[in-house]
């Protein structure tokens, strides 16, 4: 991609600002707006202020998981352990807080620590043992799944079926300053993650490692530390999404994390992040998460059957990839 811009003599200002990577992010948001317009045509009221806010709120769960996924994909990795780390965090929160607001803080901290620990183990396995990311995180998903099922006896333990503390439920379903609180939290995460990626040394190191581990290492970047940190962050974000979902739904259920593996990867990809690492931004992922959720909502508004949803999902992903995910010809 960079070769095409470099070969042009003195690119104009606009062209530098709108480089291909940034253009992909804009395409993502344009696609989201387009889907809102289609939704409004299919079902009037779809794109009303409250309708939009509702869809953005649902997008936030995918968006939070996909923040971690963006981090690891930016260094050419992938996190397949997202579903059960999310699920286990929700179970820990519910069982530890036991429905009381007083214990909510402890529950949240323990859930986040769990996510962080899973992510660190993922990172260490990949960095120190040299296990491919696909295998390590796939194994971790099984490990966390088995522990969640086994320790809670299939979610039949005393504390597992308690409702989420009312404070959390109120926070996740309520409004602050006229905007849904869960949406505000996501906006906060978007600002922080984007700032980290664009304006910090750590952010530059992520892109450096994603482009070439070897060159980054020779340039003095602690590649192993960066990688482990990113997997830890992915675990942390998965756990955070688990907490948010437990509050939003009012309880923890088995398999609640399953849809988020496919959706988080799809959101990252639709947002224009290169799957082999080094290029992309969380803002693109945000657009991807909104596109995915709006797409489902449009299909639901058309009361399309489940199988049509799966097919449309796949076709849209392939279409978007064909539009701007193609690699340069090497022949």
């Amino acid at each position, binding site marked *: 991609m960079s070769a095409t811009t470099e070969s042009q003599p003195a690119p104009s200002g606009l062209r530098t600002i709108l480089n291909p990577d940034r253009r992909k992010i804009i395409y993502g948001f344009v696609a989201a707006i387009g889907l809102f317009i289609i939704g409004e045509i299919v079902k009037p009221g779809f794109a009303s202020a409250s309708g939009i806010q509702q869809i953005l709120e649902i997008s936030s769960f995918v968006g939070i998981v996909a923040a971690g996924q963006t981090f690891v994909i930016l260094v050419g990795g992938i996190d397949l352990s997202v579903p059960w780390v999310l699920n286990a965090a929700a179970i820990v929160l519910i069982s530890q807080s036991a429905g009381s607001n007083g214990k909510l803080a402890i529950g949240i901290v323990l859930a986040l620590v769990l996510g962080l620990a899973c992510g660190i183990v993922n990172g260490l396995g990949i960095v120190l043992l040299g296990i491919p990311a696909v295998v390590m995180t796939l194994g*971790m998903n099984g*490990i966390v799944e088995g522990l969640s099922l086994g320790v809670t006896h299939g979610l039949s333990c005393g504390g597992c079926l308690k409702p989420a503390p009312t404070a959390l439920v109120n926070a996740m379903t309520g409004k602050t300053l006229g905007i849904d609180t869960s949406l505000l939290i996501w906006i906060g995460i978007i600002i922080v993650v984007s700032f980290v990626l664009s304006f910090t040394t750590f952010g530059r190191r992520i892109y450096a490692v994603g482009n070439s581990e070897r060159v980054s290492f020779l340039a003095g970047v602690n590649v192993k530390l960066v990688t482990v940190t990113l997997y830890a962050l992915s675990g942390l974000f998965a756990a955070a999404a688990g907490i948010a979902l437990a509050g939003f739904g009012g309880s923890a259920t088995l398999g609640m994390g399953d849809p988020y593996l496919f959706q988080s990867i799809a959101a990252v990809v639709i947002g224009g992040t290169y799957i082999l690492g080094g290029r992309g931004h969380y803002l693109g992922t945000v657009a991807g998460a909104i596109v995915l959720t709006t797409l489902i909502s449009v299909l639901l508004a058309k009361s399309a059957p489940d*199988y049509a949803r799966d097919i449309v999902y796949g076709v849209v992903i392939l279409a978007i990839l064909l539009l701007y995910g193609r690699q340069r010809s090497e022949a």
Partner: protein
Amino acid sequence: MLERAEPLRGLGRSAGWVAARRQQIAAQNAPLVVAGALLVAMLVIYIVLYSVSLGSFPGAFEAASITNHAMPLCLAALGQTLVILTRGIDLSIGGMMDVSNSLAALKLHGGFGVEALWTVLILLIGAGGGLLNGVLVAFGRLQPILVTLGTFSIFQGVALWILPSPGGHVAGGYTNFFLDPKAPSALVWVVILGLAWAVLRRSRLGVNIYAIGNDENAARANSVPVLRTKVLAYALAGLLAAGAGIALATTTTGGDATAGDVFTLSSIAAVVVGGVSLFGGRGSGVGALCGAFVLTLLVDVLFFANIDPLFQPFYQGLFLVVAVGASTLLGRHLVRRR
């Protein structure tokens, strides 16, 4: 891998060359040996646990049960191997198994002619799905993981459309012929698969697949038809996935449009346990078959070890990480010693 050493022949076969060649063969096949050893170890553990807990040795019925249960994973893992050897990955295998599983449960009964015709048709549909993957990857120049993620979703949808709720059945005669529940006749299919692999690997297509996985640009420069080879690899993987779906419907004697989903990830696990490198160009389909049997035996071992079935995913995940971690460390050790 004899083919790859051909150009060296001009240099003459000095003693050093023979030693280097021997070392190369050893290094090439080390993962396969590890996979075989793992299979033997798992078999021994299984037999010991079985005889201790039941007081008798496992017989023909157990052998048939294990082989039949391993069959879908064997076929899926073999397909996955072909794609992974080209440095790709096929996430759509589970979705294709959904499709063929649903079709098999709906169509595979009502006389020999109908059953034979639909078996061929289902396999062709699988090959067609794989062809779609291959064309998008090779000619569309898209990343395999993303293409197959997209087609996985499409195949899942198609399967749900074919069979909205679990049901259907496979004719008893069909089951007895392919996966006889009483005698381990299905071992014949495993041997045939192994032999087919040996033939494929020595064929032009097989050599090209390995070449692409090792270095795509070098392969292209040596006039390997990269695009065509990739398309064929994905199409064959789709065909094998369809076979796996039929085998799944046959062992469970019924259809479920979501039963194949888990095979996407378990086929990758089997391939990796079988010593195939996820970075392409290294490994063997025979290893993947070993990996499929190891993972199938693991379930039985956990059962006879009296492990709470709820903890099963925990031990499976742990086994995967430990097996791959250990063999990676072993591989590093061997390389360092050389």
